[in-house]
């Protein structure tokens, strides 16, 4: 009897342990965030009811959800309209050509209002263009500054000066310069896109420049000695030693820059009335209908979600290229 019961007793803790671990894990990674979100929704819906504005009661979660579905429905309608317009135009042109094969047919693009989804797309394209362009400038500049004390001494005061400048201060200057310089009969890019993008670029350069420079300047002396003993050429030195060694700080800079880029973009779009999520928010504010606050709230949540996803994708990229697999990245 005893010999048969003993193993089962000794097995129980061994079996229970992983299950309790699993529960702990699920609890920490799923349950706690869920509780946090539910608590937030509860507080939101209860306080929102108490806030009365000239545009009606502040929207709670339910109203915001309703507006979110509305916005998607409007987007579908708009797409349908565009589709119908093009179908009609093609049918008409086909008729004309059937009657007279030499006839000149005109093809007009559909000029509807951009929907919420369109604005998201515009904002994403703008922020990524500005960020990528800024990184292409900031990383080489940061490496140069980190490698050479003289360049650092020359450039550092400028960085310190321009780093704290608000995007809104740049905006008028960028707008005027873009209108003056970018004159073209057949513009590849719209001026509003360029204005937003350059404002984003100017504001999100600095974290990458500074962090890259710090990373490069702090590459271990031993590795630099290795490079010297091997007499590595400048390019090999930079690409084989400096860049991999400063990659972690470079990514810290890039993530900060992307965060700033996204925040700056929304502000710039609002102020300059350039297409994008910022303009959507501003337009809704100017509209002042009873649904406006709910729609703005949808935009706020979407802006937050996109910012979060952008940061996560940078983290994913960092994990992909990082050589130090033991580093805890969060």
């Amino acid at each position, binding site marked *: 009897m005893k010999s048969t019961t003993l193993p089962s007793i000794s097995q129980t803790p061994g079996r229970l342990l992983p299950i309790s671990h699993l529960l702990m894990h699920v609890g920490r990674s799923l349950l706690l965030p869920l509780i946090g979100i539910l608590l937030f929704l509860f507080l939101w819906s209860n306080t929102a009811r108490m806030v009365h504005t000239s545009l009606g009661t502040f929207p709670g979660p339910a109203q915001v959800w309703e507006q979110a579905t509305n916005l998607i429905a409007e987007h579908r309608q708009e797409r349908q309209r565009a589709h119908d317009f093009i179908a009609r135009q093609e049918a008409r042109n086909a008729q004309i050509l059937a009657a007279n094969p030499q006839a000149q047919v005109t093809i007009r693009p559909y000029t509807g209002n951009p929907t919420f989804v369109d604005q998201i797309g515009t904002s994403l394209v703008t922020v990524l263009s500005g960020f990528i362009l800024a990184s292409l400038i900031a990383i080489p500049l940061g490496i140069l500054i980190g490698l050479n004390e003289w360049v650092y001494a020359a450039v550092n005061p400028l960085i310190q000066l321009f780093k704290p400048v608000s995007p809104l201060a740049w905006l008028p200057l960028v707008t005027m310069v873009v209108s003056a310089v970018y004159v073209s009969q057949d513009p590849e890019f719209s001026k509003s896109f360029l204005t937003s993008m350059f404002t984003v670029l100017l504001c999100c350069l600095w974290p990458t420049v500074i962090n890259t420079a710090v990373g490069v300047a702090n590459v*271990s002396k*031993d*590795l630099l*000695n*290795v490079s*010297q*003993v*091997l*007499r*590595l050429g400048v390019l*090999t030195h930079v690409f*084989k*030693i400096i860049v*991999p*060694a400063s990659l972690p700080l470079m990514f810290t800079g890039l993530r900060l820059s992307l965060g700033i880029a996204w925040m700056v973009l929304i502000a710039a779009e609002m102020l300059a009335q350039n297409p994008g999520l910022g303009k959507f928010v501003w337009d809704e504010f100017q509209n002042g209908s009873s649904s406006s606050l709910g729609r703005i709230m949808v935009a706020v949540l979407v802006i937050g979600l996109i910012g979060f996803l952008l940061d996560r994708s940078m983290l994913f990229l960092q994990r992909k290229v990082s*050589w*130090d697999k*033991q580093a805890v990245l969060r």
Partner: protein
Amino acid sequence: MNKYLQLSEVSIDFPTPKGRFRALDKVDLNIAQGEFVSLIGHSGCGKSTVLNIVAGLHRATEGGVLLEGREVNAPGPERAVVFQNHSLLPWLTAYENVELAVKQVFKGQKSKAEMREWIIHNLELVHMTHAMDKRPDEISGGMKQRVGIARALAMEPKVLLMDEPFGALDALTRAHLQDSLMDIHADLGNTVIMITHDVDEAVLLSDRIVMMTNGPAATIGEILTIDLERPRKRVALAGDARYNHFRQEVLAFLYERQRKVEDFGAQKKLHETVTPIKVNLAKQG
């Protein structure tokens, strides 16, 4: 004497807030081709500075270094360095770490296949072919140091400079690597300068032991020639009277003639507690 590597009157000053600090003073040393020389002395006596000057990583303030009659004034692969903490690039595998050196040194001289063969040959010398696709953080400290030695050997250096190569390793691993190094030195006949703290290591490996005085203005105190026959076996030597005599010589230099007073009173400044002792250059025998 064969003057393959010459250090003549090498002195170096470092600038400090309190003025110039003379770290080394008139170091004179001639090393023959194929010779294995150890530098021994208390920490802070400028052993590493001597090595760095030979490597070209530091410039001597006065005097200079000649290798085969040519002045050394920049680092280069013909004076390969094995660093104390291995200094492997953590993002490259053992193979790639050696490859970086081989590609740099033999660019245009060896074909791709020859380079690969040469890299593997050098990894074989240090018995590391089994882990050549591992990154430094995946292998032990002793293995990292082996790869570091393979990287240095792969440059086919005229002089191999080793800065306490086994200092961070446990006693067994260290003994193992010392044996490997003796084999390699017997095979290839490299000229080696090695810094060490370990008296046994110095006596076992060296043809000559250069004993340095304490800083500031450190210089060569005594030079001890170890004329034990090679190959040397550590177990056999442990009972050898001459071996123990050499050991005793080095110990006497380090702990009697150059005894270093450690700083126990933390409030006292370092230079007040380090008492310079007059060097007795008259060597018996």
